[in-house]
């Protein structure tokens, strides 16, 4: 088509503007700036005076930086060491790349990735006080208690870094926590660096907040006295949290399931409904997660976790094992339970062979 002379100028301007627009589009990403209170919802709910809250924020930011500019005490570097399998070329390469970065760089990159991938559910402070979190069930993890649900350590102990890596790579089945395996491996490590930061910072903040709330009212206390209390509580909490993470490896579950047999499944079936194990009480006789102790047709879900969220027991008939569906993962969930929920660990109640039988029975329900 022959162009009208007056159109040529217009087309040239349009072409230039389009090029500029496309170039600007790919030049970066726009994430809504982080805003909101510096303390987690859990701490804000405590009966602390405004002055105490301000001093607590100042103390936390002195030690950990604001959430958008994370930093950690020098002595905590060792908590970020991964146990890479260097015989695997991919892991060996990843180890080299990660070890070439200092922790500050890793946390900064992790914070960026967190803002893009996680923040809308888990929140700026990691306390899952977001509007998106409020319309999801199970609700996204609130990191402010300092532990996660699906891990290799018992009770409220800190998770292993390997647990964080596994959850990020696999996701959590039957929940909104999708797999992030599509991210570059180095980005996943950095993202988990920041999640670990939120867990540790959250744990310190929660412990300090609880310690301060347990003290007599600080209404009449002088600022220096309150500051001293906070510094003291913060030092104790920081040492305890660092010790938790250092000890996590020694607490990790070592046992593993035996081989699956027809007899093992039958034994597991009998155990499932027994009073000793009592699995059917919550998970139901049919394993669909609607046992009498967990579900009421009128009231809905009856149980709550420590975060106050409704608990929907796993539906084994669909194979919805939140902690992973492999024999080792199911065994681990039964032995250690699910931290922060009414699902208690059975490693001190049942024999390892019995946990193994249950593992095989539960896995057989979805076949």
């Amino acid at each position, binding site marked *: *088509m022959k162009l009208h002379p007056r159109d040529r100028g217009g087309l040239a301007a349009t072409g230039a503007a389009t090029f500029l*627009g496309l170039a600007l*589009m790919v030049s970066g*990403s*726009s994430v*809504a700036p982080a805003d909101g209170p510096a303390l987690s919802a859990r701490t804000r709910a405590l009966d602390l005076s405004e002055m105490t809250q301000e001093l607590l924020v100042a103390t936390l930011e002195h030690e950990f930086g604001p959430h958008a500019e994370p930093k950690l005490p020098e002595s905590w570097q060792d908590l970020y060491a991964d146990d890479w399998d260097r015989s695997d070329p991919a892991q060996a390469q990843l180890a080299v790349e990660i070890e070439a970065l200092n922790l500050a760089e890793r946390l900064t990159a992790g914070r960026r990735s967190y803002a893009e991938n996680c923040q809308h559910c888990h929140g700026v402070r990691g306390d899952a006080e977001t509007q998106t979190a409020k*319309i999801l069930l199970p609700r996204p993890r609130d990191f402010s208690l300092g532990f996660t649900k699906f891990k290799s350590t018992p009770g409220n102990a800190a998770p292993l870094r390997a647990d964080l890596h596994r959850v990020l790579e696999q996701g959590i089945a039957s929940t*909104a*926590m*999708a797999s992030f395996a599509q991210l570059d491996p180095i980005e996943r490590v950095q993202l988990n660096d920041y999640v670990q930061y939120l867990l540790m910072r959250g744990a310190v903040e929660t412990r300090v907040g609880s310690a301060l709330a347990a003290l007599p009212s600080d209404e009449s206390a002088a600022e220096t006295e309150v500051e001293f209390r906070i510094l003291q509580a913060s030092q104790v909490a920081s040492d305890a949290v660092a010790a938790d993470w250092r000890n996590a490896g020694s607490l990790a579950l070592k046992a593993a399931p035996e081989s699956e047999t027809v007899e093992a499944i039958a034994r597991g079936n009998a155990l499932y409904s027994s009073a000793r194990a009592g699995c059917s009480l919550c998970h139901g006789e049919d394993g669909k997660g609607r046992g009498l102790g967990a579900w009421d047709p009128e009231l809905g879900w009856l149980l709550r976790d420590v975060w106050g969220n409704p608990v929907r027991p796993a539906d084994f008939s669909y194979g919805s094992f939140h902690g992973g569906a492999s024999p080792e993962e199911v065994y681990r969930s039964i032995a250690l339970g699910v931290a922060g929920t009414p699902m208690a660990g059975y490693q001190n109640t049942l024999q390892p062979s019995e946990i193994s039988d249950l593992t095989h029975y539960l896995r057989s329900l979805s076949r």
Partner: protein
Amino acid sequence: MSTSLPSVALHRWALATLIMTVLLTVGIGGVVTSTETGMAYPTWPNINGQSLFNFFYGSLAQDYGAGSALEHTHRQAGALVGLLSIVCVLVAARKRKDLVKLTSLVLALIIVQGVLGAFRVLGNTQGGAIIHAMGAQVVIVAIVVLVKRSNPSWTGFADPRPSDSAEARLRLWSTLGVVLLFLNLLAAASLRHKAGAFSGHLVLALTASAVLLTGVFRAMRDFRDAPQLLKAAKMVAHTVGLQLGLGLATWAFLFGPLMTELSDERSRFLVQTLLATGHLVLGVVLMAAATNLALEARRAR
């Protein structure tokens, strides 16, 4: 030679498909993206064994959260549009054989769009989400073409190489407007999925608006005796104006000075969701209007 008009049935079904696509599938999809619940359930198409055709939204929300029910409804809306497009193919086969290929193309595009939605969910990638958003625009353009061509009053396409320079220039600017709108929606989708900068969307939005308004200006100046064309041009002009205003408000509340105006987090979330979703839906309406104008510019007169 028969002078009777072709059947209006296909036109009505195509119109229903267009309205359902914009209001239901795109509208709910916009809310899903605004609330960031697209990954509320990372399985597809069923939710934890619950069928795509489960209509018990209350129990779904109770078991998996309202976000999951929202995403589920978006998938159901997509399925409904797919069913409507199948009806279009069947009606065309009976009453408008000349449009069987076009209705089949619309159906194929809707199926592809559903599969893209599956890849977006199962792959959990920002790129997948952007491609899925762009797929919606292609579907809208195809349905608008079907709506126009199935209209009994459609007089067919004019000579592809017009001798009239005014007509050639109108065709150029109206088509360029659709292309730029598509690029701008790519920038908007990239922004929504945190893979693109706001400045890119801004520049492309202004460029697309200028080009579309150039087409509107030419239509209103040179084709005063073509009522359908004038109607299409006015619709584009009004939608561009509304969209620019809504875009400004959306920017102000999402990134700009009014971001912290609402101190209550819930109210802020609601306002941001409504504005962003409204801006998205109006963007799709603008794409439909721009396609309509481009088609009118090619109509045989």
